[in-house]
């Protein structure tokens, strides 16, 4: 047997061993060991090639070709096996990382704005966008701002209807947000300005009345504008705009003549019932209308009380009951829910 043939037999044997080892490598690390064992600098192939020196120079290229072919075969087999193992490993990883996607997610606890806060924000925002400015006033008021300046003198019957909370020194808890009219107009003049002025004044108000449909503390938003040439038509325009925006649809509105000492003319404002669309239901007592607010043209006595020239300027004013508007908008049946503060209710209504 020639040297060449012997080497070729060795190569053949090596090839078989290597192919078996490659196929048998269970992971990438094993495969790397196989590569090193057969093709590495001290690997089996190098060992075999040490015999090339004993070969007839003419036979050397023949063997060289065989060796190259063998290397190519092994490299290809190694690459294929490597690819296979990589896929296998990836599949295993994916399987190991499989989760139950139906388990609940980690979610930071959500808070909730009180529905009255949302109502106050929505209402105020509508007027801010029209160009009104926000004003505030104290909740502990005096008789002048809460009554006298608003054309409600002490002997006035309307005064008794306000169910006022008093303090021993004669101060009181404001019964409406209308005193903000007085304060805002006085400040306007004190700052050296003149009308026009347009104010939205959200706030808490108090009446000593506590039952199913009355809360001793509730929220109002006072809206008023004073300038030259302001008329009932502006009042109606602003009311219509506000009610349409707030309820998100074009509701019919109805103004009924009424009486408030601080407006002349005065009007109660009704909207078409949001529950029955005017057909008549339990909520609107079959009338098809819901009373939502009181409004009117500011009484000249009120303007005079703040030293505004009532012959030159006129204005309108209205006061919104926030609880009522929120109840109507969201179908909340009971006023008391707002102040009970049951977290289940607040979360359901919250945003």
């Amino acid at each position, binding site marked *: 047997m020639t040297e060449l043939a012997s080497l070729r037999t060795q190569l053949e044997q090596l090839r078989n061993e290597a192919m078996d080892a490659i196929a048998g490598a269970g992971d990438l690390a094993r495969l790397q060991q196989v590569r090193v064992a057969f093709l590495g600098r001290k690997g089996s192939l190098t060992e075999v090639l040490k015999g090339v020196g004993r070969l007839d120079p003419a036979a050397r290229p023949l063997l060289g070709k065989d060796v190259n072919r063998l290397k190519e075969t092994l490299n290809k087999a190694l690459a294929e096996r490597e690819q296979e193992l990589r896929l296998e490993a990836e599949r295993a990883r994916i399987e190991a990382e499989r989760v139950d996607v139906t388990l609940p997610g980690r979610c930071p606890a959500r808070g909730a704005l009180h529905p009255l806060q949302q109502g106050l924000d929505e209402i105020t925002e509508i007027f801010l966008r029209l160009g*009104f400015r926000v004003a505030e006033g104290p909740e502990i008021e005096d008789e002048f701002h809460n009554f006298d300046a608003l054309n409600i003198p002490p002997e006035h019957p309307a005064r008794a209807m306000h169910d006022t909370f008093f303090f021993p020194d004669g101060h009181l808890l404001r019964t409406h947000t209308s005193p903000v009219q007085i304060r805002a107009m006085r400040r306007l003049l004190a700052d050296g300005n003149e009308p026009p002025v347009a104010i939205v004044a959200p706030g808490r108000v108090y009446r000593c009345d506590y039952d199913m449909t009355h809360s001793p503390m509730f929220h109002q938003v006072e809206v008023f504008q004073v300038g030259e040439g302001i008329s009932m038509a502006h009042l109606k325009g602003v009311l219509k705009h506000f009610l349409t925006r707030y309820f998100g649809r074009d509701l019919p509105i109805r103004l009924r003549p009424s009486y408030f000492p601080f407006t002349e003319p005065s009007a109660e404002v009704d909207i078409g019932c949001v529950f029955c669309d005017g057909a008549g239901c339990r909520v609107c007592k079959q009338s098809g209308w819901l009373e939502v607010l009181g409004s009117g*043209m500011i009484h000249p006595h009120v303007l005079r009380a703040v030293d505004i020239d009532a012959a030159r300027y006129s204005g309108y004013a209205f006061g919104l009951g926030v609880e009522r508007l929120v109840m109507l908008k969201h179908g909340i049946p009971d006023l008391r829910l707002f102040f009970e503060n049951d977290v289940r209710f607040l979360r359901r209504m919250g945003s």
Partner: protein
Amino acid sequence: MKMPLSWLKKQAPFRASVEEMTDALIRLGHEVEGVERPRHAVRGVRVGRILAKRPHPNADRLSLLEIDVGAEAPLSIVCGARNMDVGDKVPVATVGTELPGGLKIKKGKIRGEASHGMCCSEAELGLAEHADGLMILPPDAPVGMEVGEWLELEEAVLELSITPNRGDCMSARGLARDLAADMDVPLAAAVAPAIAVDAQTRAPGLAVDAGADCPCYLARRIEGVRLGAAPAWMRRGLRDAGMRAVNGIVDVLNYTMLFLGQPMHAFDADKLSGALQVRYARKGERFVALDGRELTLTDEDLVIADERKVVALAGIIGSMDSAVDERTTNLVLESAYFAPARISRARRHHGLVTEASMRFERGVDPAMVEVAMAQASRTILDLFGGRASELARHGDAHAINAGRTIHCRLSAIEARLGVALDSRADAVLRRMGFHLRRDGDRLEVEVPPFRHDVALPEDMAEEYARIIGFDRVPERLPTLLPGAQAGLDDAVHAAVAQGAVQVISYAFIAPEEQRHFVRDSAGDLLLSNPISDAMRVMRRSLWPGLLRVARHNLNRQANGVHLVEQGRIYERREELSERPMLAWLMAGEAVQDQWYAKARMVDFFDIKGQVDGWLSARRLSARWQADDDSMGLQPGQAARIVLGKRCVGRAGKVAREVAQSYGLDLPVYVAELDLSALPPAKRPRFTPLPEFPAVQRDLVFLCGREVRAEELLRVVMRAGGRLLQEARVFDVYQGQGIPEGKVSIGVRILLRDAARTLTQEECDRLCDTVVAAVAEQCDGALR
């Protein structure tokens, strides 16, 4: 106010339906809150005349009647009653009628005899509780007519809310006047009926000394009255109008008042001594009112008195011991005009509201003073007999409120309303009693005396508005220049964004709750007229309210609560003070059991995180100073929150006894910030992003337990100098492996130079400096 429709129809012949009248009233400013129908006329019950009556062949107790009900042929009806005879008129329920009790009349046979209807008793028609036998109608009842119609059984009662400026509409006459003017229906004239005066009966003596508070007072004596109950129709009418029947005289006076708007009073003449006086009370004078209350009068009160005693608080209530009762035979009737302001003051001072005071303080129609007197006298004489005297008279009612003139500009009214006036409105106003004179743009108005509410040109604008109708006013949106208005206050929104649920609680709490968190009571503001003791004092902290809400929710199976409230607190300092506050409460579980985490109770750092997180949203950073003397909070877990040099709030664990007073046995943490004490939110300022990498090092120190994290970090920062960008505590540990009295604090620092990459050696040197500083200043050793 309740107003039977039939009363309005007696003042003016309205033909409109109830709905049309209701709509018109609403348009005129008289809110109709509802329509009651106290009696429905039964349909199908007719006036029948008995033509023949014979005994039922098969039943002793029954009769066979032939009854003419205006139909072609008479009806045969079997009847069990005995009180009727041939020729009587009786109500006959015809076949198909449903009676008020629900009985349906059907054709039938009773013991073999056909019956085509039913003769009715008052009870069967729903007119009485009980009845013996058939209702026998008067002979003039027209055969065949609906009984309900003939008896005026049908009634609709309007439930009205009359605004306080319209005293003139608190009567059938006043309301009908407004409505008739608008609907163009003629109003019946109000004429004082003639009274046959008995020359032997002397008019009462009268002395009035009350100036403008009583410009007119009429009195009449009626002797020899045989007092009985008012007739049924009158009592029924009073009941419809929401009043109770009292006795014959009082009922007549009330009925007159409800019709004409003029309150009246009757004294028992035999309980008076001498002449009547109208005068101011003497201070301290006492009198027992009809309702049994003893009143102590002031010299501001106007009274009616005889020579010995006060017999009435003018225009409000009479005295018990001059009142008419069932034994009364001689009367003195009063009809007068009292000034509204005088009545209002006395009414408020004595806390008395009566039907009379409501009308007088809103202003009555002066013209009715005399008419009502005549009307009531006449009714009393007709019903109860007696002899009437001449009137004792003070003043002339027609002069009251007369001749008031307003000068208006039509263009100003149109400008106020935003709508053009029309001639129909003038016609309506004239029918309402206004005298109008137009001269170009000028309008001169003479106001009728009963319209106490009309005095200014703006009042005329209102009159025009309600006649023209607000629906005619166009809608116009004003143009406003947008101001430099900041957005909405977002304080509570930022807290909600961090997971809190916003609550709103009452501003008043119980005084003992106030003491949980505020030591001194000197600044408390107590209400004079609280709803209850639990709502007596204005809160000086939001915490009691939050604790109540926590209790409510934890009692309803909540495992934990995380609440925030924004609201004011109220105190008397040198002056009244109202400050806006933001307060948090966390109680129970901060984290619930989850598949990825175990439940955890809330602790101090949960509430601190809320506050610091909230502040950081405004780019503010507070210092927390331990405060063992914080009222209502547990020592060792309470802190002052300090910004700059100012204390802006406090926080901590609610003291156990306080929490337990709300029934809370869980850990409860609270915090409160004074929003008015906070500086405005800082605006962000741009700084370039770093170009070179930072080096992070962790240094773990073993320190004494008294060392505060804030202090340690300050030492670290100062030692680190310019290159130390950030230092924070990443670990705190005590326990196994740590000596007693010591604590291990891990600080992570970030080193960076803006201009280059730091070398290892530089970083090592910096760390050494930091470690040395901590060793020296905090007695802390590197672990």
